[in-house]
């Protein structure tokens, strides 16, 4: 029986307080981390571009985000005359709330040992509990649910502004999010197969027994790369930031937003970067699991977790400083024609290996059947791609293109 030991049996008042405490800490932590992330990104990217970056507010400009946030509060809140006022006001909240929700399933601490799903508890006010806000049985699906709700925030913001650039930006953003959600979900499936559970706590526990049980082969190669690319696209981070391509769309879906409502979108965006990094650490890099020195049980797991998250935050900024933005058709091709087929193929291969290794099924028929399926699928896919290319060529005959 999995699940948080705190919520087993009868629930008393202290249990409720512990849950509220965890919610409060997670909320506060995410807000502070977001402020840090904005500063970190600006500082790092200016280093990469040989600039100084924010350096006036506080030591090393670390209070710059706070100053910007305060400034947003005092700005005039404009609303276009053509805007749908109810939806216009609702949209930023949808973005921010979903950004918080996904973080609830991330375990941030606790001693995970030897792949044991009952390990990883901490003692909080005399109660045994997990160091994560919630450990629902459907665990990681909550991430996918939250990211599908986040699409609403963007889409409704774009539509309700009653203006053409936000609408175009919103359509782009939601099409991109929906496309890459498929690849993201399939990468998660590979992790779930390897760990044998949907619960994030069990996924971390399954990776915690040293190099043997950390399933780097099953998920570390293809699923991780696919997940990373798809997550970058989900977050609308460069090189997939077509949503706010300034040269084409002004500011994308939040063009008409100003003051604190814009600040909420901004907050949600950076918060999502942190949440996604934390999810990646959880799914692929064992979350808080890691060697513990000097018997400091309460310190090292959390330290490992934040260290791993920081690496991913750095890589996201690095992407932004390095990579040029993709064109829209390149984006769609990468999502649908590369990531999804590769991920499907890997699921097939990995599943065959598991059948052979764990269920002791004779490898020869597995290899034969698997190869036949793989060949047929590849042939069908290639045929479909060439048919699509031919149709594209027909529609864009040279006579149409002479003007451009």
């Amino acid at each position, binding site marked *: 029986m999995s699940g948080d030991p705190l919520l087993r049996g009868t629930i008393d008042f202290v249990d409720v307080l512990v849950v509220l405490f965890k919610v409060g800490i997670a909320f506060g932590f995410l807000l502070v981390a977001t402020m840090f992330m904005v500063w970190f990104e600006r500082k790092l990217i200016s280093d990469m571009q040989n600039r100084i970056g924010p350096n006036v507010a506080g030591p090393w400009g670390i209070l710059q985000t706070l100053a910007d946030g305060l400034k947003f509060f005092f700005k005039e809140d404009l609303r276009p005359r*053509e*805007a*749908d006022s*109810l*939806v216009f006001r609702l949209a930023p909240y949808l973005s921010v709330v979903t950004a918080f929700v996904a973080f609830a399933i991330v375990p941030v601490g606790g001693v995970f040992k030897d792949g044991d799903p009952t390990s990883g508890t901490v003692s909080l006010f005399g109660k045994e509990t997990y160091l994560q806000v919630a450990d*629902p*049985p*459907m665990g990681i*699906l*909550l991430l*996918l*649910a939250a990211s*599908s*709700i986040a*699409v*609403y925030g963007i*889409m*409704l913001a774009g*539509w*309700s*502004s*009653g203006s053409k650039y936000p*609408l175009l930006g*919103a*359509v782009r953003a*939601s*099409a991109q999010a*929906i496309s890459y*959600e498929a690849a993201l979900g399939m990468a998660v499936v590979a992790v779930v197969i390897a760990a044998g559970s*949907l619960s994030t706590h069990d996924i971390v526990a399954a990776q915690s027994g040293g190099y043997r049980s950390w399933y780097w082969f099953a998920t570390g190669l293809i699923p991780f790369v696919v997940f990373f690319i798809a997550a970058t696209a989900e977050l609308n981070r460069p090189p997939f930031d077509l949503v706010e391509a300034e040269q084409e769309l002004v500011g994308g879906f939040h063009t008409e937003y100003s003051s604190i409502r814009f600040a909420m979108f901004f907050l949600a965006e950076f918060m999502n970067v942190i949440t996604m990094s934390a999810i990646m650490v959880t799914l692929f890099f064992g979350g808080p699991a890691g060697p513990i020195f000097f018997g400091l049980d309460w310190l090292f797991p959390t330290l490992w977790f934040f260290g791993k998250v920081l690496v991913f935050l750095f890589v996201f900024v690095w992407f932004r400083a390095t990579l040029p933005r993709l064109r829209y058709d390149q984006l769609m091709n990468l999502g649908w024609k590369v990531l999804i087929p590769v991920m499907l193929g890997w699921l097939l291969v990995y599943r065959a290996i598991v059948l052979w290794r764990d269920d002791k099924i004779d490898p020869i028929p597995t290899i034969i059947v698997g190869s036949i399926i793989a060949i047929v699928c590849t042939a069908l896919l290639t045929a479909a791609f060439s048919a699509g290319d031919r*149709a594209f060529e*027909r529609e864009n005959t040279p006579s149409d293109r002479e003007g451009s």
Partner: protein
Amino acid sequence: MLSVLVAQNIAFGIIAAIACISAVRMVTTQNVVHAALYLVAVLASLAAIYILLVAEFVATTQFLVYIGAVMVLFLFGVMLTRAPTTGDSRLTGDHWPIGLGVAVMLAGVLTYVVLDFFGSDQLPNDPIVFDTADVGDSIFSTYLVPFEAVSVLLLAALIGAIVLVRKD
């Protein structure tokens, strides 16, 4: 003794009220995007009721499939075709009394069936925990044939949609 004031029943009452009000607003509102959003509220309330019934996996699936995919496509279609932000379009057709009649009749039939089947049955005190693994097991053993049939049906619908929109 029927205990009405336990936490689940109060929560159910609130969620059911939200679902009903949203459903009524969905058919009475004159703005097509608002109607879609009210439908989202109805579907989300259903998901909340599934969570009350300890069916978290079904609830998440409801979220992912209906709210995350179906309604997003709805909104896409609406926004890209006709969805003025200001000014309401006349959405209520002239045949609404017939629709109302059908809805009342359907509600009557469903109420009758539920009452007839369950009558005064009491729910067991310990909630039946039916976790994700059980759902997976029964789909791929007991209900394998219906499940595959539905999958093929969906595939056929998908191919049909592609054939319909192809220009050549």
